[in-house]
């Protein structure tokens, strides 16, 4: 479903600040795979997600989603294949628009803009059903401005928006990191439900090693722009935070504390 081959990306090439973010990264996910990506700061996790989403175009290498080569494709032209929940709850939704309008934008993702009314009774009914699944009461607030919602509610809405069209690849960019523990759990629960229900292929970047061990069928550890360790199946099931730390001499506090 998602194949990336030998991705390379260097920022500020040729300057004193030159930094290699992706250094020959390769990874292949089959349909239904849910990969949790861990790695310290500067390991290239975010660059990797941005490359898949199209927010940055890689210097070298190839990205293929659902058999389509999207390596040079800009964000808006690959949005029919890949959708994303950002770390920042403010990034994935539009504060000045209503919940319904945000969802109406998401449901037309990958289609051409039509001169048809965005709000229809059938859609409102669908939106209510989808929002009811998360259980935050947003289904009764379709006409409310998104700016009035809490971070957790916005992130949940962002998740519904990202999954409303059943993307080929769902990208989760530390999407619970900015939330309080209880809200984070609700959003994570909703995420797992959505992935399971629609058999989504998902890539989740996380700083939380326990999450990476608990969730998903693949665990990928990145370091210096490369994959340094991969586990799946029984091997992944046998992992623990202690084993990972021991094996990789992890000294990054942020990975332990998150």
């Amino acid at each position: 479903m998602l194949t990336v081959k030998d991705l390379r990306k260097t920022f500020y090439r040729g300057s004193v600040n030159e930094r290699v973010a992706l250094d020959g990264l390769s990874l292949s996910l089959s349909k239904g795979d849910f990969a949790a990506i861990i790695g310290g700061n500067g390991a290239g996790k975010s660059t990797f997600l941005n490359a898949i989403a199209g927010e940055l175009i890689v210097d070298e290498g190839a990205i293929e989603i659902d058999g389509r080569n999207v390596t040079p494709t800009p964000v808006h032209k690959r949005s029919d294949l890949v959708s994303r929940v950002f770390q920042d709850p403010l990034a994935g939704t539009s504060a000045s628009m209503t919940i319904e309008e945000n969802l109406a934008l998401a449901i037309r993702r990958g289609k051409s803009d039509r001169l048809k009314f965005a709000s229809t009774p059938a859609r409102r009914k669908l939106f209510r059903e989808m929002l009811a699944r998360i259980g935050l009461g947003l289904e009764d607030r379709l006409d409310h401005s998104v700016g009035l919602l809490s971070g957790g509610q916005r992130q949940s809405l962002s998740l519904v928006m990202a999954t409303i069209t059943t993307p080929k690849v769902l990208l989760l960019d530390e999407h619970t990191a900015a939330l309080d523990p209880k809200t984070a759990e609700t959003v994570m629960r909703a995420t797992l439900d959505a992935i399971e229900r629609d058999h989504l292929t998902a890539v989740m970047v996380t700083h939380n090693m326990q999450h990476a061990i608990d969730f998903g069928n693949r665990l990928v550890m990145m370091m210096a722009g490369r994959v340094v360790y991969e586990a799946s199946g029984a091997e992944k099931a046998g992992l623990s935070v202690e084993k990972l730390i021991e094996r990789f001499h992890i000294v990054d506090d942020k990975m332990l504390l998150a």
Partner: protein
Amino acid sequence: MTEFLHTYLNLAPVTLMQGVIYAFVALGVMIPFRILSFPDLTAEGSFPLGAAAAAAAIAAGLDPLTATLIAVLAGFVAGVATAVIHLTLRLNTLLCGIIVLTMLFSINIRILGKPNQPLFSYEMIFDMILGPFSSLLWWQIGLVGVLVVVFSGLLLVFLKTEAGLAMRAVGANSRMASAQGISIWRQTILGIGLAGAMCAMGGAVMAQNQSFADVNMGFGVLLNGLAALIVGETIVGRRTMLQQVIAPAVGAIVYYQVISMALALGLEPSDLKFLTGAFVLLMLAIPRFLGRGYAVA
């Protein structure tokens, strides 16, 4: 006091006419500033461009409707130019507008062939549609008023379609818009083009109403439009799309009545630019001092 009232009442129909015409400009200012978050000055050039294009076309013997349509198209192209400069060169939107409006000054003189063009002996859109009533000011006001309502109505309907929602998303959160498959390029070009078309429409109607076009008639229209927009938003609000779309027309009409009163009080027309600027500053300052954000740009 009676003298003031007398003068004001004499001025009122004339300034009402100006108000409804400037409603187009206020609409053309609202779209970039409010829908696309693209502070834009092109109005200063696209308004006289509309006037020049319409006047030149009429003077060349075209019928006034075709002439107005040509003017609107020219305004659209001017808006597109500003948008494309911003998108390709990543320059500040205000600077892009200044470049385009300055260049338009030369273009407008080229279009007219001279700095101004009297149109007294030609058939105008008013003569064409109103026939025997064309010289009656209230009928003229009615005609332009209907046009403003039709344009505002169409804009409102558009903003409620999927395509309109996509345009609003670009102004509200462009990163999110991209992630939802919306082309920033396409929406910006379309929106700023639409704004240019509206301003040019205002210019075309103005030229036909006053029976001449002048390349300098754009000076200060952006601030007038912005002032009208702010007045309108203060009166009708801007929470819903309906309010946001009605505000420019309401504001333009009220704003020109206030101008009319200022004139009736004995101020010179040349004082108005200063007052408009002071008014816009005041309106921007008040919410800031009250601690509420009311970003105009």
